[in-house]
């Protein structure tokens, strides 16, 4: 079969890469999944056969070139294969977030006019059937797990393996057409369409071409020296661009193995069993793991606690320097080795990080203590900055230049520009083709020369060339006094405290800043247990006077640190409340990637915000909540409004 190659002679489409790998790495593992307690694995050549069988089956079912295929479910090899099979048929895969509710799914499937869907289980089938009437173009659904689905009407429903069987049975009929369709795929044909999570307004369909996927995968794999023998754990949502690039783009380019956990609950056990060499997690995952380690250390014997404390202090002192290959005295090195034997090694093993060669975190700012903790253990954790529209990579930290407060230097092939208002613009081979059916937004985001607005405000450090991100550009405002208002900057500082899960700071156009705080139930709950403080619910714990006192101390500590920053000293939090419920994506308060939706929160909690500014000591409120199954209810609460100590900007005072 002749497949189009790009100018440098490399395969020009994802299916072409699959065929290449099936030849080059025929017997190397391509996918693993733990099922029935055992890791099942598929080699690259088996993967190619499985994907082809599914593609043939879908052709038999009538999948046309240019059709859209929705893919919904947790990370499983067969769903990744469904993406590749769709591409083989000349169709466009559209992975969706598996925890999206039916309305969200209806919007996306309707917007792209999906004709086919490949889904994981009964839950997803039910969600689509719920909104089927709103989807005039939708025709066929293929499901993976037959449990509970036997009695469903199978007229428009097919089991994955049966579709594959059908494909094998009708191979002779379709194989020529399938190969012809693949032969047509070139660098400019669409490889995937991913919907943005939609911090504001409706999600937009980002069209990525094979060029975007392959160029990005290639340059980023080279940047981090990824190898064919690497292992990753695929556990982040398939609809997220990062997972697509790691588990499909880079995996296909370098030919490494993608491992899928048994279920969401077993992720940590599976992580330990696989021991990935290349690992990605958002800051909250690292945060959670660190919290768990600390909680368990509290319960350890005194000797172990002492050992842990002693060697961790040493690790913090010299660990990052050793990792960066800097000069460290031989005595310190020896002590670090001892620590590796007693503490770091076993700890990394427990966390599943023994083999990590390259680790990334992105999406949010990571607390410096958390970042340093992992680095001091010898885990090469780095930060990157990217977005769906860039096919992930804009900047990343090269080995040896890792810091917690920057997001790194430009990735190969990427150009950066900072606009006058501070907004970051970039141009790269990964820049998306367009927003599907939305020429207006495409034009607003991407100019004729290919520069894309990130929507983030930041600056490039003159001496190092590292990019630093301050906040979302549209969230950056002015206080009444004219001082700069950057809520995210303050929120991140608050969130670095383990007790604080989420924070929302208000103050644009006002004379003072105020904040909503969400406590972290795991951390605060553990503290409560340790101190014999009884509580029946999140709400009760959140308004406990001692919890309030702790949060107050955190807010004041943040104020003290904000006061030191000349530009942002106006952003100190004067008053705050601890919210009675966790901000939740089901209530529309967060995006599915857990980013705060400010507008919606401002509208929904207008009464509490008013109380934060009118000086009332407390506020009674009633909030509507949506349960996981879609039912609605409401909770009533009376929240205490607290004032926090603020600090004067010493330098300015001295100057005057």
């Amino acid at each position, binding site marked *: 079969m002749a497949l189009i190659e790009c100018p440098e002679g490399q395969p020009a489409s994802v299916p072409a890469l699959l065929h290449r790998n099936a030849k080059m790495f025929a017997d190397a593992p391509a996918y693993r999944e733990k099922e*029935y*307690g055992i890791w099942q694995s598929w080699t690259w050549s088996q993967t190619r056969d499985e994907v082809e069988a599914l593609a043939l089956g879908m052709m038999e079912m009538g999948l046309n070139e240019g059709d859209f295929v929705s893919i919904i479910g947790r990370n499983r090899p067969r769903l990744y294969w469904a993406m590749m099979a769709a591409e083989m048929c000349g169709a466009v895969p559209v992975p969706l977030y598996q925890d999206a509710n039916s309305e969200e799914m209806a919007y996306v499937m309707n917007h792209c006019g999906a004709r086919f869907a490949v889904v994981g289980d009964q839950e997803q089938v039910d969600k689509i059937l719920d909104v089927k009437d709103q989807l005039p173009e939708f025709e066929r659904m293929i499901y993976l797990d037959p*449990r509970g689905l*036997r009695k469903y009407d199978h007229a428009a429903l097919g089991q994955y393996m049966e579709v594959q069987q059908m494909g094998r049975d009708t191979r002779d009929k379709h194989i020529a057409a399938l190969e012809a369709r693949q032969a047509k795929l070139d660098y400019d044909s669409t490889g995937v369409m991913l919907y943005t999570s939609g911090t504001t307004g409706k999600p937009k369909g980002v069209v990525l071409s094979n060029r975007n996927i392959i160029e990005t995968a290639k340059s980023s794999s080279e940047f981090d020296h990824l190898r064919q023998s690497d292992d990753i754990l695929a556990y982040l949502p398939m609809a997220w661009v990062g997972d697509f690039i790691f588990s499909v783009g880079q995996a296909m380019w370098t030919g490494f193995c993608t491992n899928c956990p048994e279920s969401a609950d*077993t992720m940590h056990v599976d992580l330990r069993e696989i021991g990935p060499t290349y690992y990605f997690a958002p800051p909250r995952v690292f945060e959670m793991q660190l919290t768990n380690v600390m909680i368990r250390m509290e319960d350890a014997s005194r000797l172990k606690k002492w050992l842990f404390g002693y060697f961790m202090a040493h690790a913090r002192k010299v660990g990052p320097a050793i990792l960066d290959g800097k000069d460290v005295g031989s005595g310190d090195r020896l002590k670090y080795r001892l620590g590796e034997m007693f503490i770091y090694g076993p700890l990394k093993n427990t966390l599943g990080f023994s083999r990590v060669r390259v680790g990334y975190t992105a999406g949010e700012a990571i607390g410096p203590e958390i970042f340093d903790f992992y680095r001091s253990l010898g885990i090469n954790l780095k930060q990157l900055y990217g977005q769906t529209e860039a096919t992930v990579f804009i900047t990343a930290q090269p080995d040896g230049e890792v810091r917690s407060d920057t997001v790194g230097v430009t990735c190969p092939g990427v150009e950066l520009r900072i606009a006058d208002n501070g907004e970051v613009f970039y141009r790269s081979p990964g820049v998306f083709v367009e927003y599907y059916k939305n020429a207006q937004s495409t034009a607003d985001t991407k100019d004729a020369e290919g520069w894309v607005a990130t929507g983030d405000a930041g600056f490039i450090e003159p001496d190092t060339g590292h990019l630093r991100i301050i906040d979302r550009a549209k969230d950056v405002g002015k206080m009444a006094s004219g001082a700069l208002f950057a809520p995210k900057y303050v929120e991140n500082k608050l969130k670095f405290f383990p007790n604080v899960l989420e924070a929302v700071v208000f103050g644009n156009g006002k004379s003072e800043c105020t904040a909503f705080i969400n406590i972290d139930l795991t951390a605060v709950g553990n503290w409560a247990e340790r101190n014999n403080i009884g509580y029946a619910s999140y709400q009760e714990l959140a308004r406990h006077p001692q919890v309030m006192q702790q949060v107050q101390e955190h807010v004041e500590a943040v104020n003290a640190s904000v006061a030191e920053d000349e530009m942002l000293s106006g952003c100190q939090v004067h008053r705050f409340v601890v919210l009675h419920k966790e901000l939740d994506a089901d209530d529309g308060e967060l995006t599915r990637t857990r980013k705060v939706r400010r507008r919606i929160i401002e509208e929904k909690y207008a009464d509490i915000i008013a109380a934060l500014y009118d000086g009332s000591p407390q506020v009674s409120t009633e909030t509507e909540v949506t349960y996981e199954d879609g039912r609605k209810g409401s909770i009533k609460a009376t929240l205490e409004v607290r004032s926090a100590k603020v600090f004067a900007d010493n330098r300015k005072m001295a100057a005057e």
Partner: protein
Amino acid sequence: MKDTAESYVTKDGRTIGPVVMEMKNITLRFGGVEAIKDISFDIREGEIRAIIGPNGAGKSSMLNVISGFYVPQEGEVWYKGSRRPAMKPFEVAQQGIARTFQNIALFEGMSVLDNVMTGRLTHMKTGMLSQMLWRGAAEREEVENREVAEKIIDFLEIQAIRKTPVARLPYGLKKRVELARALAAEPSILLLDEPMAGMNVEEKEDMSRFILDVNDEFGTTIALIEHDMGVVMDLSDRVVVMDYGKKIGDGTPHEVRNNQAVIDAYLGVAHDEEDAT
């Protein structure tokens, strides 16, 4: 009443087979106390059959008669077309009847997986010696049984606690592990003694879903005792109502709910509908 030898299809599309087990005029006495007085009812293949009644009505005794733990003084138990003689509980288990217990009877020190594997005991044929030597047939058998156990672990979504000792699990999960062990025996009749006692609403919903799924997926006949009226009415195809050892009602949830004797004796006269729904 439908013909006991005929199959029929329920409204939700499930096929209920002919009668598989029949209780004929069962009377059970403990000394002078008559725990069960002359009760007759049947269980059809593939149905979910509930036994309800107030405290001390004799429900658990009835379940123990079905499971062969108690031998009634009078009456007959018919199973798959023939009269069942007095049996030891393990002989009943070999006939394909498995159960869970009201107050959880798991091996606390053993892992979830090992507990589930004990449910496979009736399917193991190799002797102690060959199992100790771990050769040939014994090894093969262990692998096969482990596969069945793993499928059940997957089915009941307890993969994450596979290796956890049972003693460390919360109550709701222990109940699920017990169900897993009973299912591992691949029973044709599954007896559940208050599967939802002491659970919160969410755990009850989970358990109800699993019971329905087991019935649906494996076609297992289920007889259960339960206190939670809502659950019973939602889950079961037919309900037997007991009071003071006597049967006072028998029929579909709808029939039982509208049976005056049942309302008076069990659900209470003052707030009948409220409790029943």
